């Protein structure tokens, strides 16, 4: 068992200086959302500007806070108590913020990428009638996400956790007229709630055993939990993480979530919200350190998910859905990394950051392409777009290269580090997890190259086609508000990895929160892994070129395909499984219960009433209205009474 209290725990200073206003981080976007929602149409003209301004202001404040914290020595961890949220005797849920390297890193990611995407949305959503509402929801999301990462206890985390779920629900269902958007939004919220259930029960266990839900006290006293309890908590938190981060077996909602507008996919379903699961596990590292079994399950989930995501990503023809499965798979890498424990926490966070840059960039590029193509998402109807939209092409390609791990771009540093760390596990684990991660890298290279060929290279297949609404395609480069964020994110995709990993900058910075980054040497050496992954990725690119680059592609998707492709096109039957296991039995159960309630339970009530009423109805018939028959019954009654009296007398 590892030292449970590594890193973050004891002696948390109260906030002073710049940090004492940290609530502004949350309050600014929350204020923006409130004004935009309450203001209604009056804010139509300037609503989007307010939305951007609040997030940019948060970002600026976050940067100031960041440099202030760098200037500090020692633990660099402090807490800001705002008010007692739910105080009942032994339970005291504080509403407080925890400022430490981990949360500040996320603050910068969320507000930074968030700002860029807010700006991008000005252009992307320019034609939408309710644009201010969109910005209100985006602001709401940023506020909730900041609460998620800044909260100083599991309950505040849960607050943010469900808050981002709400924002995600609202934004996925943005296109109100599309029924599938509403269904996707509902599905996302429901599957998230299943995960939240795990998180909630985990919190209950912590309260029962430790009497608190605040990070500081929980982490300091992890040692008091029994082994079984620790494992239970780790698994339950993992369930929460699976829901939010689209991990196996709760991955099915994320691709459907692409029904939302593209900036949403970039911000929420690629860069920030879906990585909350990774944050949760990294944040709860003292608990995970205490349970090797728990971490093993985390690793298994991560490895399974990254493979599933890759495979399905190869088969889809929808631009954004391929990227969505790519996100699923990349988060699988992060989960695998944090499952590795102290050798991986920082690596997971590093990949999370670089992924935030390049995946957001890839999504924005996709959005730019779709924006220029009458909102067409089918990559088989694209091709050769690099001539028409050069900036999008270049920035997208940089993101693509970063993702497949092209040497010295971001992904090369962050992803390869994870694969190397996976191979450094001892024994069979090293081979299994390292192997899965390396295989994933190869498939990633394959499906991303496929996208590149089908969308930007090759022959333009859209020239003879019309979009669904009957218009011809006139692909064009997007405006400045859209290209500038893409360029900035491309810069991040190129440079972030090198910057964060040189001299272990990020790992050292995060060590007060996550503990020092440890190294271990397992089945394969780092250098060997490095070349192995490069070779595999190159192989993936080559195969993709053989299939998709060499010869022209058909517009219709091929129907005669192997079993594997068909399975992948059906999400490896994940949705069918959900349908068969939960949805259909649930529908039947509901119908049966409604029947039972109406006919059975209520039937009993109405039945007893009917019985009473019916028998009274029978008895009523005795009242004939004929005086003489009443007289007869009186007579008979009198005779009967007399007879009875006589019987008693003479017996």
């Amino acid at each position: 068992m590892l030292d449970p209290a590594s890193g973050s725990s004891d002696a948390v200073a109260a906030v002073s200086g710049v940090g004492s206003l940290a609530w502004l981080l949350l309050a600014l976007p929350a204020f923006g959302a409130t004004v935009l929602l309450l203001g209604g149409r009056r804010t139509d003209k300037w609503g989007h500007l307010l939305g951007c301004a609040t997030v940019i202001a948060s970002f600026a404040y976050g940067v100031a806070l960041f440099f202030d914290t760098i200037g500090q020595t020692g633990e660099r961890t402090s807490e800001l108590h705002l008010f007692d949220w739910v105080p009942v005797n032994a339970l005291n849920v504080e509403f407080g913020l925890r400022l430490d390297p981990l949360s500040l890193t996320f603050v910068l990611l969320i507000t930074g990428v968030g700002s860029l995407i807010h700006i991008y949305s000005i252009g992307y959503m320019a034609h939408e009638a309710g644009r201010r509402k969109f910005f209100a929801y985006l602001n709401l999301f940023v506020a909730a996400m900041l609460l998620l990462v800044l909260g100083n206890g599991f309950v505040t985390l849960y607050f943010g956790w469900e808050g981002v779920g709400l924002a995600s629900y609202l934004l996925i269902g943005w296109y109100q007229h599309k029924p599938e958007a509403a269904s996707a939004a509902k599905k996302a919220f429901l599957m998230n709630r299943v995960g939240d259930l795990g998180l909630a029960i985990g919190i209950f266990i912590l309260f029962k055993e430790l009497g608190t839900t605040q990070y500081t006290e929980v982490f300091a006293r992890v040692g008091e939990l029994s082994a079984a309890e620790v494992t239970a908590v780790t698994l339950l938190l993992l369930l929460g993480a699976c829901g939010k981060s689209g991990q196996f077996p709760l991955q099915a909602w994320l691709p459907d979530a692409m029904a939302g507008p593209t900036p949403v996919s970039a911000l929420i379903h690629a860069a920030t919200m879906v990585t909350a699961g990774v944050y949760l596990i990294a944040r709860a590292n003292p608990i995970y350190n205490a349970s090797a079994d728990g971490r093993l399950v985390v690793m298994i989930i991560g490895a399974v998910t990254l493979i599933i995501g890759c495979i399905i990503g190869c088969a889809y023809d929808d631009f954004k859905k391929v990227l969505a499965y790519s996100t699923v798979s990349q988060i699988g890498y992060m989960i695998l990394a944090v499952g590795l424990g102290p050798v991986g926490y920082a690596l997971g966070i590093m990949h999370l950051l670089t992924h935030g840059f390049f995946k957001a960039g890839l999504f924005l590029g996709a959005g730019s392409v779709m924006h220029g193509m009458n909102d067409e998402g089918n990559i088989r109807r694209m091709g050769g777009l690099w001539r028409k939209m050069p900036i999008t092409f270049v920035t997208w390609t940089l993101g693509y290269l970063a993702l497949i791990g092209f040497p010295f771009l971001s992904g090369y540093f962050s992803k390869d580090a994870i694969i190397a760390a996976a191979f450094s596990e001892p024994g069979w684990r090293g081979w299994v997890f390292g192997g899965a991660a390396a295989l994933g890298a190869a498939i990633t290279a394959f499906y991303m190259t496929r996208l590149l060929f089908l969308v930007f290279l090759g022959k333009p297949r859209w020239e003879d086609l019309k979009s669904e609404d009957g218009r011809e395609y006139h692909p064009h480069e997007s405006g400045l508000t859209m290209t500038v964020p893409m360029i900035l994110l491309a810069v991040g995709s190129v440079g972030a990895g090198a910057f964060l990993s040189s001299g272990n900058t990020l790992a050292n910075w995060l060590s007060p929160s996550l503990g020092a980054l440890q190294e271990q040497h397992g089945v394969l050496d780092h250098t060997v892994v490095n070349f192995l992954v490069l070779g595999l990725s190159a192989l993936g690119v080559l195969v993709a070129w053989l299939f998709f680059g060499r010869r022209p592609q058909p517009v219709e998707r091929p129907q005669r395909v192997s079993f594997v492709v068909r399975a992948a096109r059906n999400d490896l039957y994940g949705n069918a499984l959900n349908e068969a296991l939960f949805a259909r039995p649930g529908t039947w159960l509901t119908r049966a219960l409604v029947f039972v309630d109406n006919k059975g339970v209520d039937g009993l009530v109405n039945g007893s009433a009917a019985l009473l009423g019916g028998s009274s109805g029978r008895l009523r018939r005795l009242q004939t209205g004929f005086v003489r028959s009443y007289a007869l019954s009186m007579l008979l009654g009198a005779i009967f009474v007399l007879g009875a009296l006589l019987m008693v007398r003479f017996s």
Partner: protein
Amino acid sequence: MTPTYYLLLSALLFSLGAVGVLVRRNAIVVFMCIELMLNAVNLSLVTFARINGGLGGQVMAFFVMVVAAAEVVVGLTIIMAIFKTRRSASVDDSNLLKY
């Protein structure tokens, strides 16, 4: 004296009255039969008073007569009223008070 004959007469009168109430339809006749029953009871009351030598039975008989007289007033009025509205004195025709 033997009370048997008086009591037998009383029982006979009572039975006549009861049968009359049960079988006759004309309200007036039914009414008369009720009077017959009342008077049969009066007869037995007086008989028992005579046997026991008390005044209770005789007083009771007077009570019954007074009540019967009052009843005749009310009853005949009702019968008259019914006859006026329905043109019938049959008790079976006025059977509205039923289920």
